[in-house]
C-alpha cells in the first residue's frame, strides 16, 4: 500500500509512489492542487479538440476565414510562437557553440518551450491546411519556388531535432534514470547534443528568415513588399534577428511566470542578466535595422509601387500608432531598458523589458499577417475586416492549453531548472539583498 510522505519544502503530502518520479530535493505542490491547476486547461483542450473536429470534418467554412482573408488568427499564432520559441535554438547556440555556461541553467526549459511552440504551430497548421492524412504531399510534391516549402521542410526537421533534444530531458527523470538502458542512452545522446544544437541553428536561421521572406516577396501586397539582398528581401533578415532577440526574453518571461506561480526562485540573478543583456544587444540592432528598412520602404519601395505610404495608415484601426508602437514602445524602450547595466539589476525592469520585447515581436507578426491582408491592394479595394469566430479561438486556446499542460507536467516531473535545488539550499543566496 502506498504511503504518504510529507514534502518538507511546502508542508504538503505527496504519495511515496509519485515522489519517486519527482526529482530528489525538489518540492512540488500536492496532487490535489496540481489537479485543480490542470482542470481548466484540460477543459480548454477539450473544447479545442471539438473545434478541430469541426474544422477537419466540415472544412474551413466553419471559421471566419475566406478566400480574401486566408491568413487569420492561426497563421498569426504560428508566426508568433515560432518567433517566441526561438529561445530554444538561440539558447543552444549560446551554450553549445558560444560556450556561455550560465545558459545551462535554463537550457532544458528553453528546449521544452521550443518543442511546445513548434509542435503547437505544426498542429495548428494541420488544422488550417486540412487533410492531415495527406500532409506528406507537401514533401512529395513541393512547390520549390515557394518560401513556404522551405519553411515546411525546416520546421519539420527542426521539430524532429527538438524532439530528440527533449528525449534526454525526459530520460533524466528520477524513476527512468533507474533503468540502465535509459540512463546510458540519455548520457550518450547528451554528448551529441551540440551537433543537434548546430543543426537547430542552421534550420532556425532559414525558416525564421523564410517566414519573413514570405511576406517580403509579395509584390501584390505593397505594404509588405521589401527590397533585399539577392533572393532574400529585408524581412528575411529582420525576422531572423527579431526571433533571436526575443527568444531569450521569452525564456525570462516563462521562468519568471513559473517562479511567480510556484513562489520559488528557479535560476540565479546572473542568468537573467545574461539573457536580458543578450536581448538588449540584439533588439538594439533589430530596431536600428527595422528603422532603416521602414525609412527605405516609406521613401522608395512603397512610392515606386504607386502608393503613398500614409494611405496604409488612413484606416483608424491600423493607424500610425501601430508603427510607432512597434518601433518605439515595443522596440526602443525595451532595448534601452535591457541594455542598461544599472536597470538590468532590477528584477521588475527585466520582466517589463522582456514583456515589452515579446509583445513587440507578436505585434510585428500581427502587422505582417492581419494588417497586410486587411489593407487594399487596388485603388477600388475596400479595407477588409476580419474577426476570428469561436472555432478559431478554441483551436488557438487548444494550443495554449496543450503547451501549459505539457510544460506543467515537465516542470513537475523533470528537472527543468538545475539551479533550483542549489538556490533552495543556499539560504544566503536567496536572501533579498538590495543591489547598489
Amino acid at each position, binding site marked *: 500500500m502506498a504511503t504518504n510522505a510529507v514534502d518538507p*519544502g511546502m508542508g504538503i503530502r505527496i504519495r511515496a509512489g509519485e515522489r519517486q518520479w519527482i526529482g530528489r*530535493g525538489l518540492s512540488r505542490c500536492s496532487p490535489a492542487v496540481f489537479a485543480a491547476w490542470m482542470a481548466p486547461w484540460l477543459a480548454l483542450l477539450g473544447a479545442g479538440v471539438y473545434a478541430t473536429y469541426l474544422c477537419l470534418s466540415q472544412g474551413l467554412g466553419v471559421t471566419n476565414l475566406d478566400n480574401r482573408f486566408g491568413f487569420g488568427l492561426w497563421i498569426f499564432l504560428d508566426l508568433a510562437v515560432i518567433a517566441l520559441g526561438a529561445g530554444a535554438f538561440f539558447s543552444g547556440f549560446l551554450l553549445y557553440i558560444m560556450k556561455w555556461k550560465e545558459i545551462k541553467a535554463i537550457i532544458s526549459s528553453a528546449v521544452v518551450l521550443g518543442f511546445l511552440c513548434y509542435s503547437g504551430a505544426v498542429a495548428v497548421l494541420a488544422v488550417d491546411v486540412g487533410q492531415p492524412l495527406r500532409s506528406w504531399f507537401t514533401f512529395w510534391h513541393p512547390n520549390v519556388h515557394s518560401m513556404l516549402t522551405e519553411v515546411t521542410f525546416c520546421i519539420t526537421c527542426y521539430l524532429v531535432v527538438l524532439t*530528440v533534444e527533449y528525449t534526454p530531458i525526459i530520460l533524466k527523470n528520477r524513476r527512468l534514470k533507474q533503468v540502465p538502458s535509459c540512463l546510458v542512452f540519455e548520457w*550518450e*545522446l547528451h*554528448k*551529441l547534443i551540440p*551537433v543537434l544544437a548546430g543543426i537547430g541553428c542552421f534550420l532556425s536561421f532559414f525558416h525564421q528568415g523564410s517566414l519573413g521572406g514570405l511576406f517580403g516577396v509579395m509584390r501584390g501586397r505593397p505594404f509588405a513588399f521589401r527590397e533585399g539582398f539577392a533572393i532574400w528581401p529585408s524581412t528575411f533578415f529582420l525576422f531572423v534577428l527579431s526571433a533571436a532577440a526575443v527568444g531569450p526574453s521569452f525564456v525570462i518571461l516563462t521562468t519568471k511566470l513559473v517562479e511567480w506561480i510556484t513562489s520559488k526562485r528557479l535560476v540565479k540573478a546572473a542568468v537573467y542578466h545574461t539573457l536580458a543583456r543578450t536581448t538588449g544587444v540584439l533588439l538594439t540592432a533589430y530596431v536600428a535595422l527595422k528603422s532603416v528598412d521602414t525609412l527605405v520602404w516609406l521613401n522608395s519601395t512603397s512610392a515606386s509601387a504607386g502608393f503613398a505610404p500614409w494611405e496604409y495608415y488612413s484606416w483608424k484601426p491600423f493607424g500610425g500608432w501601430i508603427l510607432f508602437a512597434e518601433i518605439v514602445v515595443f522596440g526602443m524602450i525595451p532595448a534601452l531598458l535591457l541594455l542598461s547595466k544599472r536597470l538590468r539589476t532590477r528584477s521588475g525592469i527585466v520582466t517589463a523589458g522582456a514583456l515589452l520585447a515579446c509583445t513587440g515581436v507578436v505585434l510585428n507578426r500581427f502587422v505582417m499577417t492581419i494588417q497586410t491582408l486587411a489593407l487594399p491592394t487596388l485603388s477600388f479595394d475596400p479595407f477588409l475586416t476580419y474577426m476570428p469566430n469561436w472555432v478559431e479561438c478554441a483551436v488557438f486556446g487548444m494550443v495554449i492549453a496543450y503547451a501549459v499542460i505539457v510544460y506543467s507536467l515537465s516542470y513537475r516531473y523533470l528537472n527543468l531548472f538545475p539551479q533550483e535545488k*542549489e538556490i533552495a539550499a543556499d*539560504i544566503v543566496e536567496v536572501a533579498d539583498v538590495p543591489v547598489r
Partner: protein
Amino acid sequence: MFPFVDGFHWSFGHILFLSVFGGVLALIGITLMVSLRRSARAALSGQSEAIRWKSDFHDLAANELSCRHELAGRVEHRHCHNEFDCRKCETHPKLANAAATSEFDVSTYGLSYPSDRLYHRGQTWVKREDDGTLTVGLTDLGQRLMGRPDSVELPAAGELLHANGQGWTMMRNGARVRLLSPVDGEVLEAGGPDQDFYLRIKPAGAQANLTHLLRGAEVSGWVRSQLERLQILTTPEGAKPSLADGGVLMEDLPKAQPDADWDKVYGEMFLEP
C-alpha cells in the same frame, strides 16, 4: 521533388534543395544511430555503473565539487573535473606534498574519523588489512545520517565492485540510499550495521591503488564542509540563518529531526543528486 516523381527537373534549385535537406536529415539520423550504437556498446560492456556515476557527478552542485586540495587548504579555490578520481588527475601529484592548512578538529562535533583509514566522499571508509584485503564501512557521519536503517542490501561474495559504482543500498523512512563503492575489487565477505565493516574486498590488481581517497587534513576539511552542508539541508526552506549553539551530533539524525527532507539530504550527502 524526387527524381522519380513527376515534375522533377535536374535544375540547380532542385539539386541544392535535395542536397541540403538530405544532408540535414542524414546528420540527424547519424547522430541518433551513433547514440544508439554507443549506448548498446556501453551497456554490453558493463559500463552502465561508470556512466551513472559520470551522470551523477555532472549533476552535482558547484559547491559540492571542491578539490581535495582546497579542502586541505593547499589551494584557495579549485573544482574537481575528474569525477573525484585523483588517479587520473594530472594536478594531484603536484599538490599532494604541499603543506596543508586545514586545522578543523572533527572530534569537536563528537565525530570519529580514525587516521588509519582512507575516506571516500560518498560517506564510506577503507582500511587496509594485514592480509592485503580491504575493509569498507560507513563513516561516523554516514552512520548518524542513516541511524538505524530499515533494511540493508549487500552484494554477495564474489561480486565485482567498481570505484564510484554501487557498493550496497540501505533504506530509511522510505528513502533508498545507494552507497558508492570506494574501491575496485571483488567482494569476499559482507558485514552489516552490527559489525565493524560492511564489506571485505580483495582489491583489483596486485596492489590496491587508493590514491583517490581522502586522508589527513583533507578529511577534516571535507567533514567540515559536510557538516555545513548538512546544517543547510536540514534547515526548513525559508528559515533565516542562525548561529549554532554548539553540541554533539545526535546518533540517529532522522529520528531526532523527522520533519527534514531526508530523501533530499541522502541525495546530497551520498552523492546521488
